[in-house]
Each structure stands twice: as C-alpha cells, then as structure tokens.
C-alpha cells in the first residue's frame, strides 16, 4: 500500500489579531478561532492530489497535540484524507518531541512520503520536518513549491533565498511545503457528513514510548515594540523633500 503521511497542527487562525496576556505567560487563546496550520493544509492538499493522480493509495493525517485537535482532523478527513491519528499530548510540544512521535508513526505506517508544513504560524519554529528526516535517516526537501514523483524518486522544486532550487530525493522522504505549492480545496457539506464515518484513532503520546520532554522553558511573552505613527505627506514633491532631508534619497 502506497501511503502518504501528513502532519497537522492546530493553531490560532491566521486572521486573528494576537494579543499577549498582561501577565506575560502566553497569548490569549480563549474564545479564539482555531484552524489547521495553513502550511499543513497545503501539505494535505498536495497529498490528496498525488493520490488522485494515482501516486498513492492512502492519505493518513496525524497530529501530536491536544484532544481538541479532533476538530481539525475531522476537517482534514472532510478534505479527503482516508483516516486520522491523534497522538494526544497537552501543553507545549517541542519539535524534538513531535518529530519523535511522528517517527513512531512512520515506523508503523511505512509511508512512501511524509508531507509537513514548513512552519507552524504560532511558534514559527520551522523544525519538525528536518528533525524527522534526520531521525529517520531519510532525505528532506523543505520549502517545496513543486513535487513530481517518478518511480522511486521525487523531484522537488524548493523556494530558497536565491530563487528556485531543484533536488532529486529517493523515496521515502520528508517534504515540507511552502505557500505556492498549491491552493487547498474548500470542504463541501456532504464531505463533512462523510468524514464523520472515517476512522479517527486516538492514542496517548506515552503509548508510543515517547517522553514529553521540555528543554526550552518559556520564560516570558511580551508584545513587540510598536512603531511610532508617522506623518502624511500631500504629494510626491513633499515626500521626496522629506526623504532628502533625512538623507535617505
């Protein structure tokens, strides 16, 4: 069975205005809209497209996170994933822990490909795909904007600082997604109904034999410094003048 494993994280929706708690212990998440991390949604879309082209038989979505992530997994099933795995763990899950848990799932599921988002938009760590690839001792192709699979290899185009880089990686491999890889599909109502019948298995992190270590203590959260509000200029001439005075032009 050719399988693709997709990692999903539940995060504060990207449209929410983030506020730091006054006591500095975190950001406000009560009553805030939660969603699938946008990069993970792209990962899932890509997996579904590969399956639809006949490149895979099954798409499995997995998360390492709180029980509430069921909602996001149901959305993923509605998008078209075949089944979902919830590795339940509360609190902050450091990338090394998430990657160790995913490695256990990889050992069980033996996927041809693991697709993860390049970063989660909450902690912006951007590490899990690379750590998983290291632990699994397999190739990584991060920041993918194009994936073509031929037989035992994937040709991946990556968005790098210099432009676009193309790599060939032997399968199985870990790929992380950038924004331009695809545009995720919308979920249709009948699919939401169908998704309710798809398998969603929950297992505690400890059952995988992975320890929920904390090696980075979150000492303090602060709001970023605000920029001073500037001035309005009335036309191009006034702007050029002002910039010349500051020695900027």
């Amino acid at each position, binding site marked *: 069975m050719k399988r693709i494993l997709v990692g999903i994280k539940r995060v504060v929706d990207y449209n929410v205005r983030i506020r730091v708690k006054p006591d500095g212990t975190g950001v406000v998440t009560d009553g805030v809209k939660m969603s699938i991390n946008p990069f993970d949604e792209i990962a899932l879309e890509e997996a579904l497209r590969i399956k639809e082209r006949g490149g895979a038989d099954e798409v499995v979505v997995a998360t390492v996170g709180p029980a509430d992530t069921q909602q996001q997994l149901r959305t993923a099933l509605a998008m078209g994933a075949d089944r979902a795995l919830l590795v339940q763990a509360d609190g902050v899950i450091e990338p090394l822990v998430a990657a160790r848990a995913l490695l256990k799932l990889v050992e069980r599921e033996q996927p041809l490909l693991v697709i993860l988002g390049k970063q989660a938009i909450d902690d912006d760590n951007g590490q899990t795909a690379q750590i998983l690839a290291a632990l699994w001792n397999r190739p990584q192709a991060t920041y993918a904007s194009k994936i073509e699979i031929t037989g035992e290899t994937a040709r991946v185009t990556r968005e790098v600082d210099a432009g676009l880089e193309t790599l060939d990686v032997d399968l199985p491999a870990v790929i992380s997604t950038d924004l331009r890889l695809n545009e995720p599909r919308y979920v249709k109502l009948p699919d939401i109904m169908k998704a309710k019948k798809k398998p969603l298995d929950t297992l505690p992190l400890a059952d995988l034999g992975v320890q929920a270590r904390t090696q980075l203590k979150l000492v303090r959260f602060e709001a970023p410094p605000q920029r001073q509000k500037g*001035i309005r200029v009335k036309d191009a001439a*006034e702007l050029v003048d002002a910039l010349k005075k500051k020695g900027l032009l």
Partner: protein
Amino acid sequence: MSVQILIVAEHDGTRLNVSTAKCVTCARAVSGAVVTVAVFAADAAAVAAQAAQLAGVDKVLAVDNPANAHALAAVLAPQVAALAGPYALVLGPSTTFGKDLMARVGGLLDAPQVSDIMAIESAVRFRRPIYAGNAILTVEAVDAPKVVGTVRTASFEGAASGGSAAVEKVSLNVTLPTHTRFVSVSAARNDRPDLQTAARVISGGRALGSADGFKILYSLADKVGAAVGASRAAVDAGYAPNEMQVGQTGKIIAPELYMAVGISGAIQHLTGIKDARTIVAINKDGEAPIFEVADFGLVGDLFQVIPEIERLL
C-alpha cells in the same frame, strides 16, 4: 568562563554570505564566547580566508569535500554534528540555508533548537519572535547539554573585518548519504542590490497589476540604487519571482528606507519589515493598515506618484 560556539558559514562556493558575519555578532554577545566558524565546501580555502578576517572569530575550520559543492542539508548535517562535540551552542543564519540545515543538525544531536534568535542574553537564554512577530518570547534552555540556534539576521549588524583567525583544515570520517541530489538552481540574475542587504528597498504589491507594472518600480529603484521586493500577493500572481517576497514566509529585511507601493500592510508582510529604519507607504486607500506603521504616508495612485518621484530626483 568560556563558552564554545560553532557557527556554520553560509556561502556560494566563492563568497561568504553576510549572514555569517551577523551570526558572529550574535555569538559575541555571549560573555566568554570563543567563536569558531566552520566552512563546508568542495574547496573551502577562499571562503575560509574571508571568515578568518571577521573580527571576533577565533578559529576557522575548513572542511573540503566534493560532496559539499552544493549545500544539501542531508549531506552537511552529519558533518556539522561530527564537529559539534566541544561546542555548547551551534549557530547558523535564519536564511533558507540555515533553517533547512540547523534543524536537521539538532535532530542528529538530539539538541533543542531556538529559531530566529533576535537577542541573546546568555548561552542558554534567548529572545525570539513568534506569531509572525506579534509576540516576543524569552526562552531558556534547561536540561540541554547543547543548544542549536538560527540567527535572525535583521536583528544583528555584521561583524566588521580586521580579524586574523587561524584556518585549520579538517577531514571528517563520516559516511555521507547519496539519497539527496542537487539538480539545478534558477537564480534570476540581476544587477540590482541584494534584497537582504540593500540600504534601500522598494516593494510592490498586488496593485502593480502585472509583471509589466513592476517596471516603474525597477526604473525608480535603478535611479536610487535600491533593491526591489514584493508582497506575497504580487509573487503569487506571477508579477515578481519568489525570491523577491518580503514577509513572514519571505525575506526578513532591515533597510534604511523601505517603500511599500500598493501594498495593504497585512501582518505577514509587516513581519518582514519591522526593523526597517524608515517606512514609506504609497497607497490609494487612506485606511490601509500599512499607514499604521509608515513614517511617511502618501495617499495616491501609485501609477502617478512613482513616475513623479522619479522625475523629481
């Protein structure tokens, strides 16, 4: 007490990237820092010599290997890990090169990584942006013999030249994988200043309407010696190539002057320009959020304003 810090150099085979000099400044902020820079290349001599000239570098390790001709994380990571033994902190730049590589190194070393370090309070205590820069987090490594980090380059000045560190050739006995192969890179050649280091940057958004529309920005940029950037919407629409994207998922820059032209100022875009000294916004919508952060705001049609600015210079 001395703190041993290893920095993985970023380069293109011949020239050291300024991101490395910024990592040196970050590392030097740790009291008692002893800074070693490692250069991995097919032939590391030229780049190692440049690294040795950075003030604040104590030693340079040059690792030659034909397999290092292209910076592949899967190939470099085991070599970095093999060198990492004596170091408490292993740093790389928070560029696509460093982000791709360092987390893999962290995985091999079983060491936690601190991403996008914007300030370093000690070898174990750091400040970093999260939520696209909407919060700043102070983290402290506990129970970790070694920490890996990526350095947010916009937060640090590059170390000056004037150093004269010794260069040591190192050969490593590690088996390198062949499962990952470089095919090509399409670096759109351009003779404009580099977006990441330019003193002036002019960026265009969706409002430019086409790749052709961007020409008025290139023309102005060439007149003032500026680099040209773009919003994600402009890149997604194909008006500009991906390497021009500024923001949370593009480049994080800190120019003296940033001009946002026909860009609304979404939070993900603003993340990329927080450290710009002066921000200019040109937008026909006086309510656009970009004006909240602009030092100089001009409400108007960019297709009139930009050519006019060029005429006035």
